[in-house]
């Protein structure tokens, strides 16, 4: 699923609600939730926080967000074995990730990149874009209009 046509305006429109949702989940001040903040590195999120954030975003935006959705969308039509082998993201997989996570500064992509470390790349904007994609998917399926 492409994200090239997600505009800055679209991201800006939902960012305040995403930031508020994340601040509630992480128990931090909303001012700390910047668009380019890394969830793990800057906001101290743990795996249970990711789960919390996903479910809160689902309720806040009335969309369904399947677990593992970001990586699944990044992988696109690459097979799992072409995307990663033995826990290491392949060159082709890394290229897909860099393109898909275009909001993440290039220097945050390690080489080699362990699959388990992909969530360290995610920023607040990554989640904004995920919500927008799911809003579009919901609308395309004839569901509720974006909240």
């Amino acid at each position: 699923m492409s994200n090239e046509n997600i505009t800055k305006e679209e991201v800006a429109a939902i960012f305040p609600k995403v930031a508020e949702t994340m601040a509630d989940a992480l128990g931090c001040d909303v001012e700390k939730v910047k668009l380019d903040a890394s969830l793990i590195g800057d906001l101290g999120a743990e795996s249970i926080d990711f789960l919390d954030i996903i479910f809160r975003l689902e309720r806040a935006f009335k969309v369904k967000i399947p677990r593992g959705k970001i990586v699944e969308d990044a992988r696109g039509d690459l097979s799992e074995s072409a995307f990663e082998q033995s826990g290491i993201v392949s060159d082709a997989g890394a290229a897909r990730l860099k393109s898909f996570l275009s909001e993440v500064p290039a220097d945050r992509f390690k080489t080699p990149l362990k699959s388990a470390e992909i969530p360290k790349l995610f920023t607040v904007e990554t989640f904004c874009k995920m919500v927008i994609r799911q809003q579009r998917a919901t609308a395309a399926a004839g569901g509720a209009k974006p909240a």
Partner: protein
Amino acid sequence: MDGHFQAFTFVNRITAIQPGTSVRGNYLIPPGIADFPQSLVGEAVGQLAAWGAMAAVDFKCRPVAGLAGQIELLSSVRPGQTLELSAELESVDTEAVSYRGEASADGIPVIRLQNCVGPMMPLEEFDDPQSLREHFAVLCGNGSTLGGFGGIPPLAFSRNGGELGKSARATLQVPASAPFFADHFPRRPVFPGTLLMNLNLQLAAALAAEIPGRWELRTISDVKLRSFIPPGEQLELEAKLDACTKNSVTVIVETRKEKKLIGGARVSFAPGGNS
């Protein structure tokens, strides 16, 4: 009897189940125990939801305590009462189950849980999948043996500091062995999050009692359990006053092992009667 499906099991029978969608059941609080705190009523609802979730994924995974958005404490219960339990599974897959649920006793609502999420873990790490399948069949049939829970054993929990009306601190020495570890869980003993919550609530109530007025526990929100607690761990609990008005007192409870945050919640009190 080794305590499995007895020592910390709070569902006697599943009376109706729509796979992956909803489940109803009941539990007789053993008449001989001293008390049955509301946190264990919440455990009973969570266990019912867990059976529904495990059945939905063919017992490949099991949920563990994680998140509870809001828990309304509506009334207390007595030993000897039968809890009527229900859980609606909002979503379930091999990553997580989200659900809401209720319990009532003698037709009176006891507890209501909303926006609960349990991370799903590989079942084999915690228990024998086949024995769980077999016990699930028993629960869906005539039900299990009654009276296995012998009450909460004494826990080494002592208040050790704080500031009057503003904060309260306590230490919990999790026992190295206890009957509930045989059931929670046979292959990986974990101190139950609901027992920790019970102690958090006691500490929050002790802090609320230091504030003028008479305060009754009403709601627990934003419950988050971040780590498993193995036997023998020493934990530091803290309750901090977050807000106080004439209509409510809100307390933040947090549990740490050394500096690492293990869990937390927001506890709300409302004015009680007979002040």
